[in-house]
């Protein structure tokens, strides 16, 4: 296969799978007569998407905004605390158990608590949950990245009589950059999912998660699915943005063999 046809095939294959899947789905519902309560057909979901496009866009905006706010706060916190932990072993020792506990906190348990803590009309509870979810992968990856300097490079900085801050800026931080980006990539999906799930447990109305649950509760299954589709698009979009960001920065930081 020539490179062009190969590339075309690489794009066409998943599209074909998707179209086939939708066709089978539609067939199951309209020909075999699967009940609408169990599974609305793609055409119905598509119609709901069109009818509620305004509401869906607003909801996606709210959920996306909460996820972004949480991601930014969680990522900044993760990088700063990882820098401190990389700098002082005792701080790392102090922080490690806290991070380990944050990593295993179930969103389901924390969301109602935070939502009632900040009040029923505040988005802060949801943002805090997204931030917590984003913090862990950024912290863990950054800390690992900060430990990637080689003894040779550390010797070199030492022969330059470089200060701790100079070594951090010229050597430690750039070595860690690809790891920070990987952490952010993982954190992005988590922040979106967490912001969405947090909406199930109180807080103001609005946001994809709360509309999925209210639509399902009023038996508007096709509409619920339309919101699910929007949530998938939001998550994919956020993921793509971070992948692009990662590519862009890695292009500027070629990670060849550190010879």
């Amino acid at each position, binding site marked *: 296969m020539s490179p062009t046809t190969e590339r075309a095939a690489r794009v066409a294959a998943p599209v074909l799978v998707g179209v086939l899947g939708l066709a089978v789905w539609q067939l199951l519902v309209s020909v075999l007569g699967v009940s609408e309560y169990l599974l609305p057909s793609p055409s119905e979901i598509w119609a709901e998407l069109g009818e509620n496009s305004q509401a869906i866009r607003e909801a996606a905006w709210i959920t996306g905004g909460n996820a972004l706010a949480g991601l930014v706060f969680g990522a900044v916190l993760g990088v700063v605390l990882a820098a401190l932990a990389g700098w002082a072993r005792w701080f790392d020792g102090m922080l490690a158990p806290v991070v380990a506990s944050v990593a295993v906190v179930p969103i389901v348990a924390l969301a109602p608590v935070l939502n009632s803590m900040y009040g029923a009309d505040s988005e802060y509870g949801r943002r805090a949950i997204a931030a917590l979810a984003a913090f862990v992968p950024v912290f863990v990856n950054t800390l690992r990245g900060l430990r990637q300097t080689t003894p*040779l*490079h550390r*010797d*070199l*900085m030492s022969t*330059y*009589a470089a200060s701790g801050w*100079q070594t951090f800026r010229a050597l430690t931080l750039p070595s860690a950059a690809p790891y920070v980006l990987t952490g952010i990539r993982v954190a992005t999906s988590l922040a979106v999912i967490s912001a969405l799930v947090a909406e199930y447990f109180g807080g103001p109305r609005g946001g994809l998660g709360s509309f999925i649950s209210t639509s399902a509760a009023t038996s508007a299954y096709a509409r619920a699915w339309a919101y699910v589709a929007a949530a998938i698009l939001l998550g994919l979009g956020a993921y793509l943005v971070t992948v692009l960001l990662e590519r862009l920065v890695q292009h500027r930081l*070629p990670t*060849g063999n550190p010879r």
Partner: protein
Amino acid sequence: MQDAVRIEGVSKTFVTRSGQVHALADVSLTVGEGEFVSLIGPSGCGKSTLMRLVADLEQPTAGTVEVFGKTARKARVDQDYGIAFQQAGLLPWRTVAANIALPLEIHGVGRRERRSRVAELAEMVGLSDFADHHPDQLSGGMQQRVAIARALAERPRLLLMDEPFGALDEMTRERMQSELARITAETGAAVVFVTHSIPEAVFLSDRVVVMSPRPGRITSVITTGIGRDTARDEALRESPAFFEKVTEVRAALHGAPVRSPALEGR
């Protein structure tokens, strides 16, 4: 004239889990201003450790190390030496020019002066056309040249080199040796050069210091008699005087004339 390096009665003991390792025992050595001195010996003879003591990357257990009449620490802080290791140790995310500029950047040299100095150094090591390349786009020999340019950035009067050509193929290696000889002649810097290649040591040096292991110590010092003004070229490599010195260093390394392995087997 002030000596570049003065090492007196230096011992170095490393404490490891399996006990103490005597890396160096009572070593004394002086390197004059502008002198090229090679340290040669088998693995574990402490030649790299000795160089690292001069660089203040290790501290001696006993004895003193002076660089240009100062403590090794003061000389390091004052940037009196430049250093190159077996691995080029370039920062992969920086271009060739930015790698050469690294020490200048850290010592707060202004942007404009930095740029002209980098251009000068890239020219000296023949990499002007590659200034914007990244290290992973360069061959091993080119990377090592960048490392040498970086070591020369602060115009040091002393150059410390730890097997800088050890990872290069033979042809590249010989070319790099000639270039290093030219560069040190241009800059007039003293050099402490760690190697385990006998021809390399003889070709480059004023004096070859032969060391032996367990514990690391100096067993002999051989003056090559190849003056600074002698061209380091192919003719030198094929001259009888060169071969004579190679044989002399080899004999000193083995402690006695070499016996053939076939005879030893019986």
